[in-house]
């Protein structure tokens, strides 16, 4: 751990000023990830800007029926808030399947978005890593990459807003790390919006555009500018509370990062043409975790589900389409089939109105 200075601003603009003044400054809130990275020599901030005194600790209802989560609300408090459990159970369940109660008590909403990958090679400063030191190489590509990405790894195609890259476009990826968050997968499916403040003012970033694909710039996890600070995450009114599922597949039953996770949400409607009791999918949301550098969504897959009858056939087709172009790197090939099956399972759970927890009893 390197020596660093410390500031504790009392206003958002002071915090931004700290970031502007020192490019080596980093925000700290819960510290559940940053402190580990500092102890391991992976992060070496020159200054820590502790934002825990800022007034970003509240969950408030929005006039349109949405919900605003202050950046400093703990993961535990979000998951247990009555408005979240009632309107956005998908989010609550995703959070509760991440990490441990102790860490959820410390970890914040903004920090969760900005947590770094769990790639083994990234965590070891003795090794090359394009994310940690750009241009040094990626040992994961030919190494032990069981936990690594199968989607969106190609270079030069950072079409993160489209959420799709084409398969096998030749050149070797620079980075195959995944984003480790569970919460963000649910936020992606719910079309949350990230509110940030920087030197030039406020702006909103849809969650789908917040994280980046590695492309040629794997050292950048997100589109947050160096002088920007997350102040809140807003949830739109539609929470898909009736039919949603968060399915997390991991190597043990708790306290492990997802190999694959699926946030699935459906809205069903009576099928006028189909006779009594027949239903069709009116709207669908689907996001994958553990498979890419960001939560993986594909609007076309969701669009294709609309108007379909919920069931094996439609879900299989959606899963296949969502995984189109997926590519394994030796140890993680299984994730493609696993993600396909998990997607079908999660959609099935969502359609049935089941709460949707991990599949094991």
């Amino acid at each position: 751990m390197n020596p660093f200075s410390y500031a504790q601003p009392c206003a958002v603009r002071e915090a931004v000023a700290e970031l502007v003044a020192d490019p080596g400054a980093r925000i700290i809130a819960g510290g559940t990830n940053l402190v580990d990275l500092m102890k391991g020599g992976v992060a070496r901030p020159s200054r820590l800007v502790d934002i825990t005194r800022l007034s970003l600790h509240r969950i408030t209802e929005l006039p349109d029926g949405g919900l605003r989560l202050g950046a400093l609300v703990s993961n535990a408090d979000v998951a247990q808030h009555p408005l979240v459990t009632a309107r956005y159970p998908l989010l609550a369940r995703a959070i509760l399947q991440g990490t441990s109660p102790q860490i959820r008590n410390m970890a914040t909403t903004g920090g969760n978005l900005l947590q770094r990958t769990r790639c083994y090679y990234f965590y070891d400063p003795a090794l090359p890593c394009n994310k940690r030191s750009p241009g040094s190489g990626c040992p994961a590509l030919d190494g032990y990459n069981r936990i690594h990405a199968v989607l969106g790894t190609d270079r030069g195609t950072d079409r993160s807003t489209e959420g799709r890259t084409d398969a096998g476009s030749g050149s070797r990826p620079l980075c195959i790390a995944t984003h480790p968050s569970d919460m963000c997968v649910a936020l992606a499916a719910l079309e949350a919006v990230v509110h940030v403040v920087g030197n030039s003012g406020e702006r909103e970033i849809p969650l789908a555009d917040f994280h980046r694909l590695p492309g040629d710039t794997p050292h950048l996890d997100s589109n947050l500018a160096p002088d920007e600070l997350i102040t809140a995450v807003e949830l739109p009114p539609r929470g898909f509370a009736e039919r949603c599922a968060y399915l997390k597949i991991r190597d043990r039953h708790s306290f492990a990062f997802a190999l694959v996770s699926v946030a699935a949400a459906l809205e069903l409607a009576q099928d006028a043409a189909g006779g009594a009791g027949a239903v069709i999918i009116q709207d669908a949301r689907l996001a994958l975790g553990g498979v890419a550098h960001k939560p993986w969504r594909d609007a076309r897959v969701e669009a294709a589900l609309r108007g379909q009858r919920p069931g094996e056939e439609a879900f299989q087709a959606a899963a296949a389409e969502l995984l189109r172009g997926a590519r394994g790197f030796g140890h993680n090939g299984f994730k493609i089939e696993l993600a396909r099956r998990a997607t079908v399972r999660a959609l099935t759970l969502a359609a049935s109105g089941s709460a949707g927890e991990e599949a094991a009893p």
Partner: protein
Amino acid sequence: MTAYIGKPIPRVDGRAKVTGQARYAAEVHVPGLLYGRVVSSPIARGHIRRIEPRAALALPGVLQVFTHENLPRLAWLSRSYRDHTAPPGTPFRPLHGDGILFCGQPVALVVAESLELARYAASLIDIEYAVEPHATELLLQRAWATEPPRGKMGYEPPPGPRGHAERALREAAVRIAADYSQPAEHHNPMEPHATTVLVDEDGSLTIYEKTQSVRNSQEYVCKVFGLPKDKVRVLSPFVGGAFGSGLRPQYQLFLAVLAALELRRPVRVELTRRQMFSFGYRPITEQHAELGAAADGALTAVSHSALASTSRFESFCEHIVHESSVMYRCENTRLDYKVAPLDLYTPIDMRAPGAVSGMFALECALDELAHAAGLDPLELRIKNYAERDQDKDRPFLSKELRACYKKGAERFGWARRPRTPRSLRAGDLLCGWGVAGGVWDAQQAPSSARAMLTADGRLRVSSSTSDIGPGTYTIMTQIAAEALGLPLEDVTFVLGDTALPLAVVQGGSLTAASVGSAVKAVCEKLQARLLKLAQDGAGSPLAKADLKDVRFVDGRIELVADPRRAIAVREVMRRAQLGMLEEESIAMPDLVKQGRYKMSSHSAVFVEVTVDEPLGLITVTRVVSAVAAGRILNPATARSQILGAVVMGIGMALTEQSVLDHRLGRFVNQDLAEYHVPVCADIRDLEVIFVEEDDPIVNPLGVKGVGEIGIVGVAAAIANAVFHATGRRVRSLPITLDKLL
């Protein structure tokens, strides 16, 4: 009554542990304490071309950087670095030359006035390595495999062949052959290895150390640093789990002592979690098992070979295949055991070393044979039950394995098990039941204890043994309190200090038998002295009584035939006008008598799993472990031992592996987020049954130890249950979900 043996007495050290009163090696605080930070090699093989500590030394508060270039003159012979539990070879000597033998090797120690400063300074050491090609893939090193020589404490080469295994296999009506593989596992105790060294004015050392044997650490320090024993005291009153990782002095001890001696200041060196992956591990094994049987399932041939990893500098060895020619009745057996050198540190014993690996292969193979022969796997085991140790043609001393099978099966409901795989369901999930047996040697080693009874009737018993978690403090207190008939709260047991009488290392499940026997013996000496004192003078109610005529209960010595004739122990002390009575005793195993028998503990493990087949998710929903390990001194602590071992077995079966990146020659998942020990959510119903054995020969207490036996057989039973659930045989551990997709 003051009868404690066999009672579930709560841990006497429990309160100290949960309230934080118990101090561990890295929790000793003294003024002026310095902090050492280890710099580890990122390469697996080669040498240091250049090491530049100047930037670190330039920081105010950094006292010294120790490297191979400024190492003071120490013992030169590698023999001096051999510890009690070392395998044959040339032990690793920290900072001894520029050679790199394994990734994670300590190449420098930075000593500074704070931990944070030491950590930062360590990051400034500039090192240039010359990299040489390394080898970490076991199967690629097969050509260099050899039979390990003798030389490690307790190790004997496997017995030679019996009968004609090859012919018997050829002629067998039913025959199976299969390969099993197992990755490296690290012990991952909760407490990282740590040493705090205090230096007295006269240069003598007081060392707080995480170890399973203070004596082993003391002798290592004396030999390496050329110090007399009376100048080196090692203390280890509490250990936060070790599982074998504390059997050998680890490099933090060497480095902390080095720094303390050179700087004449107290020094602490604590390893990081990542550095906990830089020394011993459970060896990687590749095993091959072939079994032959008659049509009715009677075993006609057992052939078992194992290839295991070791380092280039030591021949690590353990009893992997040995039990395969004893576990079942069979005329034709053939065992083979070799180790191949890798560019990793030497493996080190890890809970039930050898047996846990070998029995994984053997007990899965038995299951495969049962399936091939169309027999119930438990029936097959009972059919081939061994009544004698055929290798040495001797009887078992006591062996209640049959009762373990029976009681475990009853409790589990095994009789209702359908034979066909994939025929049990639990809702939408597949369900499977598996069984495996376990065995572990019951041993006793010389150990001693001291007992001091004071005039107030309080007893202090001591021995230099450890308590790495099994409950040694508690059971020794029970043994002593019962022997002298004193209330438990009047008895204190002290351990983990080289100033105390010699004890064997805490390993191999032999502490209860060895140290327990010494405690019993020394208390019996006190009994004799007390009785004699009680008979002094006229009118003693116990006049002319022999020891066998009296008993020590409720703080009194009373005549068995007439308990009204009694005298309080305190009264004896008062009358004799003695401030205290002290005795010391050593308990030696009766090797002549014991050698006539095969002495083992046994277990039968029954497991239920559910499998979510499309997603490959396995849950161990139920385990019944029936254990025969002689007399159980404390059913509460013994049960905890078995529960912990079963949990560790679940980890071995399903989640734990230290993954090697062979290109880099290093373990990659070196933290507890990615090295998956089981968590509470992985653990469901666990049940422990003890089938007690009345065994007067194994040792004076009749105990066999329960530290190891609980893990043996667990991984096999789980793998067998997964087969029963899914019809798929996974022969490489751990059985992660991708292997079932």
